[in-house]
């Protein structure tokens, strides 16, 4: 159906991705990076910011070119545009810190196939004005970062007793290594989701009363 272009830009443009349509917790997209790199808060943050960068840049470019690109090669062009920015982020991180680069592994490059980005390009940026797409992209990116951090912080505290590498637990604290192992990623995300469902259920129950 033809897209209407709401001209006005509201706060909603930005906050949409933060909470209501949070890519990880609500839309369950981009789960691979969300689980793979969140065994430490720092990795989570870096991954989130890199994704945000790509979201903003690709949003801008796709939006600028929205009237030029023919329908048939839409997806192909978007992928190329996104891949370009991802490669830039990749080299950027490598130039900033090799250690961080190693920790994130191939997942920076895998941002290309992160469904959030293509989804945004297709559903939003290709229909909206550049500034708006950028702001929405930033919101989405920050929502993603927030989700990653809420996974990363929990996993790092429990699994290593640290946050951003700083010791926060007492010396004799028994670390729970399961949380930095792969199963822990699944468990923590499952717990967050259950928490949200629980809160939602309680709210709707209270409303019913």
């Amino acid at each position, binding site marked *: 159906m033809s897209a209407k272009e709401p001209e006005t830009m509201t706060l909603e443009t930005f906050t949409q991705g933060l909470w209501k349509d949070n890519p990880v917790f609500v839309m369950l997209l981009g789960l691979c990076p969300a689980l793979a790199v969140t065994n430490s808060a720092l990795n989570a943050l870096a991954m989130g910011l890199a994704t945000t960068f790509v979201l903003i840049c690709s949003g801008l470019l796709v939006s600028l*070119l929205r009237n*030029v*690109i*023919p329908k*048939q*090669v839409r997806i*192909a*062009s978007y992928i*190329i*545009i996104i*891949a*370009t920015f991802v*490669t*830039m982020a990749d*080299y*950027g991180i*490598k*130039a900033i*810190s*090799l*250690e961080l680069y*190693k920790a994130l592994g191939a997942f920076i490059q895998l941002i290309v196939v992160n469904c959030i980005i293509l989804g945004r390009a297709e559903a939003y940026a290709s229909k909206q004005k550049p500034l708006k797409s950028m702001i929405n992209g930033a919101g989405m990116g920050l929502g993603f970062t927030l989700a990653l951090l809420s996974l990363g912080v929990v996993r790092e505290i429990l*699994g*290593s007793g640290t946050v951003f590498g700083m010791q926060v637990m007492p010396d004799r604290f028994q*670390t729970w*290594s399961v949380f*930095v*192992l792969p199963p822990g990623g699944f468990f923590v995300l499952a717990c967050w989701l259950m928490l949200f469902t629980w809160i939602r259920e309680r709210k709707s129950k209270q409303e019913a009363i």
Partner: protein
Amino acid sequence: MSADHSSMKLVATLGGIAVFSGLLLSLTYEITKPMIAKNESEALEAAVFEVLPGAVTRENYLLDDVGLQKVGEGSSREANLYAGINEAGERVGFALSGEARGYADVVRVLYGYNPETQQVVGLRVLSSNETPGLGDRIEKDPAFQENFTALDASLAHEITTVKNGEKTEPWQIDGISGATVSSKAIGKALRDSTHEWVPQLHAALEGSLE
């Protein structure tokens, strides 16, 4: 006819975008290349200095059938071992790499070898995926690192890993209790690597002495 025309447009748009991103990327690449190279060489240097106590500068070498050849920075040939030079300008030893399967994945190590004393004088785990809190103690555990200050690598005896607290000989590695598999992997990595390189290295060194 119009179909052909639209096909042309498709190809042109796609091509245009591709060229644009090609340009953007090669720019990025050119800008970040020196930074990355610097990062990499710093990281390598740090590792070499760590496994060769006393070293302050590094020389890159290629050891192959021809013998030991020095390779300069930025040479097209890849170095496969490094020498550490101390403040006095003397060579304190060579840094070599080795690998073996650990508990979860392959463990890669860089170790310092002193040809004079025929000892391993330092070790650093370059990459491993061992269990946090258990296997990953091979990277940080100071008691375990103690093993590699003067480990006999003379090939007269095989380097072996023994149970925690049972080390009696200079060529034995005192394992970490509860992480036998990982400890043994380090032993195997050293054993295999020294078997391969040490005779070659000595032959090449003798050759260069002559």
